[in-house]
């Protein structure tokens, strides 16, 4: 029953996670971190998915990323990651028979486009190349799944390096309407590292561990003042507190949350309305938790022998950064205003259509209650007559890749590519004019 794999390799070159697979399939074969790292004890560089392996020791790993703020500046490191992905994970031997669909960020400077082309054609020797950008692929994917025809949509991509709000009309990204915030998963992780290092243990080197802690424990608060007041309480009444245990290399090599039930207690908070604390405390009595042995003194002492740290208000302050970058000192508006500016720079006829089709994609939208909070912030900024509807993709990390897979399996794909022969004859700059950005 041999299914013939199409020869198109779809590669979403993300700053944090690289997704690679074959066109026409639903899921990518390889979802690996796009970096190489060297543990302090060994001389060997671990590439991509080797860092995710169960026996890898990720404490104090020094990482090197080929992508800086979203753009590919280091083709050397990228070559090593791609080598590993293509040869070991995708098992591709002869690349000259395959074509590559590469997803690049918007507004790639020409010098970087040239070096990327060089990497694809001369180092790896692909047969042909097609370059796409992420908002149009997301739009394509969502349009194919929706019932009615979606003419235009606003794609909000909260990725690793930055966040774009991009209007897309009929598979074409409207360049002039894109607005970018320089905040992304990387900035959030760095902020969490700073907060934890200031308050308890020094974790400034442990990027991968804090990434994991952030994914497990952080959430978006709907009412900031209320949650801040809640996090100041002590003992059992503080339902936001939870502990994260760092690996010690002997008993466990991966960090983990000490008590998942305790970490989920915040979900019982109703959405934003103030609540009387006695109610909550009695509800908490039934759920599990470590509140019994907590005393006010214990809370302030940090037990350094146990390699763990406690998180209370960092859990919601970290994603809060996306909505209020002013708190960090960045002189940019929050995500809701960014969206409004992006829409306002398009033609007025498009405004209602765009507000009705807001698509959230990208790994940083996976925080619980993200969409609720965004709608709550966005609604007062939009005219009453327009309807605001936010759709979350069901898998924000793979969303762009799936759009690419759809594009690769469409019949017009072949005509959109640039072949190696053409590249060798006319060069990178003229070839790039074929692609719309």
């Amino acid at each position: 029953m041999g299914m013939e794999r199409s020869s198109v390799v779809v590669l979403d070159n993300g700053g944090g996670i690289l997704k690679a697979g074959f066109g026409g399939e639903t899921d990518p074969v390889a979802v690996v971190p796009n970096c190489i790292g060297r543990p302090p004890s060994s001389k060997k560089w671990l590439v991509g998915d080797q860092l995710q392996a169960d026996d890898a020791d990720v404490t104090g790993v020094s990482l090197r990323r080929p992508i800086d703020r979203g753009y590919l500046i280091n083709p050397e490191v990228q070559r090593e990651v791609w080598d590993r992905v293509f040869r070991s994970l995708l098992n591709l031997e002869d690349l000259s028979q395959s074509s590559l669909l590469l997803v690049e960020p918007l507004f790639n400077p020409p010098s970087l486009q040239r070096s990327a082309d060089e990497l694809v054609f001369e180092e790896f020797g692909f047969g042909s190349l097609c370059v796409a950008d992420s908002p149009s692929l997301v739009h394509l994917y969502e349009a194919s799944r929706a019932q009615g025809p979606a003419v235009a949509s606003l794609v909000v991509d909260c990725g690793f390096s930055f966040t774009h709000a991009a209007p897309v009309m009929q598979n074409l990204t409207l360049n002039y309407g894109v607005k970018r915030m320089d905040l992304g998963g990387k900035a959030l992780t760095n902020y969490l590292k700073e907060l934890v290092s200031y308050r308890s243990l020094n974790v400034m080197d442990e990027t991968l561990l804090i990434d994991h802690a952030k994914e497990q424990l952080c959430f978006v608060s709907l009412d900031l003042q209320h949650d801040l007041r809640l996090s100041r309480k002590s003992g059992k009444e503080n339902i936001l507190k939870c502990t994260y245990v760092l690996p010690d290399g002997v008993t466990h090599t991966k960090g983990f949350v000490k008590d998942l039930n305790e970490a989920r207690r915040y979900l019982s908070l109703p959405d934003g309305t103030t609540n009387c604390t006695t109610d909550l405390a009695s509800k908490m009595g039934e759920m599990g938790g470590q509140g019994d042995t907590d005393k006010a003194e214990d809370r302030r002492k940090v037990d350094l022998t146990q390699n763990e740290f406690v998180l209370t208000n960092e859990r919601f302050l970290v994603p809060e950064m996306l909505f209020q970058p002013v708190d960090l000192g960045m002189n940019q508006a929050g995500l809701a205003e960014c969206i409004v500016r992006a829409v306002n720079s398009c033609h007025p006829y498009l405004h209602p259509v765009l507000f009705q089709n807001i698509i959230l994609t990208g790994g940083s939208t996976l925080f619980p209650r993200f969409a609720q909070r965004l709608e709550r912030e966005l609604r007062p900024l939009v005219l009453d007559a327009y309807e605001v509807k936010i759709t979350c993709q069901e898998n924000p990390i793979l969303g762009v890749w799936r759009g690419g897979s759809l594009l690769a399996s469409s019949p017009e794909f072949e005509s959109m590519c640039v072949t190696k022969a053409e590249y060798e004859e006319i060069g990178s700059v003229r070839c790039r004019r074929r692609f719309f950005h």
Partner: protein
Amino acid sequence: MEADVVRSEMVLPPVMPFKRVQMGDKYQKGQSRGRYWKHLKQLLQAENFISLPLDEPNYLNIESPPSMYPSKKYCDITGFEAPYVDPRTKLRYADPEVFKRVRNLPNEHVQRYLALRNAAVIIR
């Protein structure tokens, strides 16, 4: 060409007519690849965006501008919310006690507090 011939590198590297520096010369055989990579900031400076037309979007244009709504004002000394501004020194303060402290500060300290907020007036 057959795969093994290319792999054994007996073939001369291809010469691309559009390039000024060929790949073969950039990375000579036997020499390690350059360790020095330009960071994005340097690349952007080299791009020279100011010379490009203003209405076409490029990397610098599309940054999200600062917020249109008035921002929250915090006290310069304590960090609490500050509804008041001292007219003499222009520092923000939250309480009357803080105000006493503000009035007793030497001028140097006042300038330093303002500089933290990027509000200091520099007279040359």
